[in-house]
């Protein structure tokens, strides 16, 4: 434990620049969206307190918005607002809206009727009643709403890194992808501290008496605006092209770090989630992205892979990895899983991905069509044996593979199958496997080597580029270390790749990563 702490501090110290910037961005995002949420929510709350008939509709609608999963909401924003700060702010605003509207409404209708009547009876106008009586009296309740909204926003803002808006989520999700606990904590701890601190500060404000409150209320909007401005402070160096890399890619030796050290690439980089990266490239929000070589969207969005002429991206051959104990429990499993070995090449996989990602066929249909064409498909036996649990990571290809394995197991054995697809990243998937939550999932040799085993850097460099050496090394080490077996590779190689829009690549005559570097240096 002590050791982890030590190295966490070391990590935070080493990354203090980034950490500082991310914290500022995080605060900025939280408060910009809060500012707009107050700007929208307060009048809306006042309106429905005046016209009570509207209150059900408005609160109901705000409540529904609140229930949209944050990732989905961010996803919806991209076609409308692109990537970056704008969609993130709008999404956060939507989450902050309900507590503010609801508390404004509750606060105002909670004002003692006799007080309102007194104000009216003394000859105050409607506006005077609102500003001198209703709002001041509702203020503690309204502040409570703003407090709730702030804490929600600090939490949801971690997801902003998915759509390239920055914030502490960059560390958190990078850490999850990279199996780097220190990185996760370096993002999570400051986020938690921010939430607790802001909650406490606003709680103090709420408890102040009316007199002091009145003075502070004039300061509050300026304070929020000031804090909003923090978002603008961190600036990365500019370049003529913009790159969007996943949090995982950012932290990997065979990723951004390699691009910097081997190629000397200097490009304005934003961190973005895999789910929206391709679309953003297609929509010209990004010029260079870190994709996967078999991704169907490559075909769908007419992107082209830049040649890795200094070969920093090691091969990533996919193979199912199974817990030894599961192999004992399900004796027929290994043979069935091996049915797929060597059957899927790079181009087949890209095509299958294209069908799901672009033609929007279900992974189930794609899997069944493929197995039928390969004459591997058998109707399910509807056996009542024990349940095999299949896991998958959260991208298309893994869903298809999981479906294929499911059909193969159900067609060839009497085992039952449950699938746990969409596990957030390598770390989550692998931890689920180690902790007996799933029995197997498809993994990639490169990931096994560089993310899960993390051998000494020079050794990794030496073997990483040899497909067979890597496979044998991870197979042996996994058995020794984790009692997990790598089965025969499926055939395709899904390695990292840098991609550009085909048109832009042609226009700029950038076909390899070295071309890209030269282009950037010149422009």
């Amino acid at each position, binding site marked *: 434990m002590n050791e982890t702490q030590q190295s966490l501090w070391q990590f935070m110290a080493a990354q203090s620049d980034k950490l500082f910037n991310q914290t500022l961005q995080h605060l900025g995002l939280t408060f910009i969206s809060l500012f707009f949420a107050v700007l929208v929510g307060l009048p809306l709350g006042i309106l429905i307190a005046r016209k009570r008939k509207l209150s059900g509709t408005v609160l109901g609608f705000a409540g529904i918005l609140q229930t949209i999963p944050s990732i989905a909401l961010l996803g919806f924003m991209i076609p409308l607002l692109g990537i970056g700060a704008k969609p993130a702010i709008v999404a956060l605003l939507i989450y902050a809206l309900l507590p503010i509207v609801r508390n404004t409404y509750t606060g105002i209708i909670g004002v*003692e009727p006799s007080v309102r*009547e*007194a*104000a009216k009876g*003394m*000859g105050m106008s409607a506006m005077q009643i609102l500003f001198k*009586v209703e709002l001041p*009296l509702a203020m503690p309740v309204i502040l409570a709403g703003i407090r709730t909204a702030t804490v929600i926003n600090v939490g949801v803002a971690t997801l902003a890194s998915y759509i390239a808006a920055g914030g502490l989520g960059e560390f958190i999700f990078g850490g999850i992808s990279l199996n780097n606990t220190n990185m996760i904590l370096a993002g999570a701890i400051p986020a938690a501290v921010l939430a607790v601190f802001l909650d406490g500060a606003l709680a103090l404000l709420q408890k102040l008496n009316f007199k002091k409150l009145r003075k502070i209320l004039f300061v509050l909007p300026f304070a929020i605006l000031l804090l909003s401005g923090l978002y603008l402070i961190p600036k990365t160096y500019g370049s003529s092209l913009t790159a969007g890399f996943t949090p995982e890619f950012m932290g990997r030796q065979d990723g951004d770090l390699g691009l910097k050290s081997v190629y000397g690439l200097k490009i304005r980089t934003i961190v973005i989630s895999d789910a929206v990266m391709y679309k953003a490239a297609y929509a010209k929000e990004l010029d260079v992205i870190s994709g996967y070589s078999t991704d169907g969207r490559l075909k769908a969005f007419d992107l082209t892979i830049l040649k890795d002429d200094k070969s920093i991206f090691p091969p990533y051959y996919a193979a199912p990895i199974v817990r030894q104990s599961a192999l004992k429990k399900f004796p027929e499993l290994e043979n069935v899983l091996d049915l797929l070995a060597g059957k899927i090449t790079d181009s087949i996989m890209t095509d299958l991905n294209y069908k799901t990602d672009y033609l929007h066929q279900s992974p189930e249909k794609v899997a069944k069509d493929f197995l039928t064409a390969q004459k591997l498909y058998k109707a399910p036996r509807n056996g009542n044996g024990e349940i095999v649990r299949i896991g998958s990571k959260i991208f298309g290809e893994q869903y298809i593979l999981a479906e294929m394995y499911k059909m193969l197991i159900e067609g060839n054995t009497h085992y039952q199958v449950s699938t746990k697809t969409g596990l957030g990243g390598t770390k989550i998937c692998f931890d689920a496997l180690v902790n007996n939550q799933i029995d197997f999932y498809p993994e990639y040799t490169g990931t096994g080597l560089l993310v899960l085993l993390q051998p000494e850097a020079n050794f990794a460099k030496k073997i990483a580029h040899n497909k067979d050496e890597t496979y044998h090394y991870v197979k042996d080490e996994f058995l020794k270390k984790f009692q997990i077996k790598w089965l025969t590779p499926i055939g395709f190689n899904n390695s990292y790749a840098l991609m550009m829009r085909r048109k832009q690549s042609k226009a700029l005559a950038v076909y390899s990563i070295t071309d890209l570097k030269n282009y950037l240096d010149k422009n």
Partner: protein
Amino acid sequence: MIKLNAVNKSFCDTQAVKDVSFEVSEGENLILLGTSGCGKTTTLKMINRLIVPDSGSISIDGKDIANEQTEKLRRGIGYVLQNIGLFPHYTVAENIAVVPKLLGWNKEKIKSRSTEILEKLHLPGKYSSMFPNELSGGQQQRVGLARALVTDPAVLLMDEPFGALDNITRLSIRKEFKALEELKRKTIVMVTHDIHEAFDLADRICLMDQGTIIQIGTPKELLYHPVNEFARNFLASERLSLEFKMISLNDIWDLLPNLKSDGNASISSTESIWDAMEKLQSQQENKLTVNGQSNEQKTIDFNALTTAFNHYQNNQYHE
């Protein structure tokens, strides 16, 4: 001063006020009396347009209030609420300064007048910086009264002003209220359901039931000349004590014998029979000297008092 002419008001299907007309002359204290739901509060609130009548007209000082700007109208009328309705986020001083500020008074004027009115209501300076929740119920009601009186409006509307107080506080505040010089010049319309309060404070009483006026008249008229069964029954349970309180020794002066005895406690003839009875109760000798209006004196005992009262009562009924 205040004139209501055939005023009607309905809420949904119930007619809260039916064809109500009355006049309140300057300096008069008219009390709207009745059970809850009789329309008295609705009637009161129509005078400062907190409620807008469906038909009929209301005028103050000859001017139809429907033609005046509502806020301006209200700023010119003192208003005291049943639940007091002090602003909890304002100090006592700030609460009192609300209307003067709306009227655009300067700071010094607001301050000197606030201090003056607070002192008259027995709230010394230290109270002005306190918040309403730091005050007792009686003190809060005094602040409510001060707030209504600070601009010295000619008209004062009071909706159950002592309703939120306990009985003892209520009596003492009522006493102060009666003695308050500020109130004597004002035209007051006040709502209450408390018969004793009405008889104690009213110049005239307007008895209401189910939205209509049953009878308007002085307390004595209501006591001795009820217009119908309802008016009679309304007072029945309190009749005797009301009579004792209403009738002064002056009223029965001619009916009192003079028992000739010295060294008794004395009482002014302006006091009520009730007061005389209380005094007699506390006397050893059961005798009391009444100081009449023209320096005459009469000594009475309990017997003499009740006999005179009975005579008076009979005379009233047969008038």
